């Protein structure tokens, strides 16, 4: 089952879209379509645990409840902060570095996974910076994982994608 981390902006826009379905902006329509497509594909969806904490207080609202029912929190593990510090050297903002590190070393609520396949973001500069440095990041991650115990030594760099690429691609694109 492919796994996806929706960054906090994607999570926010989906909830906002559900809050005013009669007046969707193009971006809200895009993320809503993405959310639908990922569910049809039976993907495993995560949001950063920090985004969950923001939304959890409002679970009595059906828009929030519906969204949270489809996602799981991705939690920090032992090497998230260390990897995020290294990522900062490639020009990522603190928050972008942390979410990319979370997508690499994050885990579910039982510690049963290490990282996700794909990180989805609406942040174009983040996306572009990742594409620019992708090969270097692969090497840097390989160097870091080399000395780590299992399962952390198996960590892999996720793919970073913008919703537009996923929504406008064939369904088979979601399968790994």
């Amino acid at each position, binding site marked *: 089952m492919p796994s996806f981390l929706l960054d*906090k902006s994607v999570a926010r826009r989906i909830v906002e879209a559900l809050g005013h379905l009669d007046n969707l902006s193009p971006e809200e329509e895009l993320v809503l379509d993405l959310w639908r497509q990922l569910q049809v594909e039976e993907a495993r969806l995560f949001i950063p645990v920090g*985004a969950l904490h923001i939304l959890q207080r409002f679970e009595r609202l059906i828009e929030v409840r*519906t969204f949270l029912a489809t996602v799981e929190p991705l*939690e920090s593990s032992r090497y998230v902060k260390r990897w995020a510090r290294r990522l900062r050297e490639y020009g990522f903002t603190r928050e972008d570095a942390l979410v990319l590190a979370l997508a690499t070393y994050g885990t579910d609520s039982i510690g049963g996974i290490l990282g996700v396949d794909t990180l989805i973001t609406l942040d174009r500069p983040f996306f572009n910076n990742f594409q620019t440095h992708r090969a270097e990041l692969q090497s840097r991650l390989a160097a870091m994982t080399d000395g780590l115990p299992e*399962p952390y030594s198996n960590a892999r760099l996720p793919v970073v994608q913008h919703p537009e690429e996923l929504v406008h691609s064939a369904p088979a694109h979601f399968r790994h």
Partner: protein
Amino acid sequence: MAMTDVASRHVWQVAELVQRLDRDEIRELIRLVPRLQREVTGERSGLVQWAREQMAQYADEARPMRGEDAFVGDTTVGAYFALPEAERERIWDELYATAIETAREREVKPDAVVSAR
């Protein structure tokens, strides 16, 4: 198979042309080909209908947002949705920064499933 390839190539060629149009030219195109608008509107209403159906599943556990409900950033739903996008983003950034500061680390099991990438 060959016909599909040809059709697909035509669509890509048209798509490339459309990508070069500015907003006014897009509007002119829609005026000339009204079916484009109908297809888009139809897709949107299908998406909205789907979203409403998803929410209906939780009608016994939760209720729709109302303007006076408390919402993210110590605002109300009404006030929140009246804010410009940049301000909503700022509120989330602030709350998120606090949330990740206090987030605990979880140990990953030795037999954890590693992403396929």
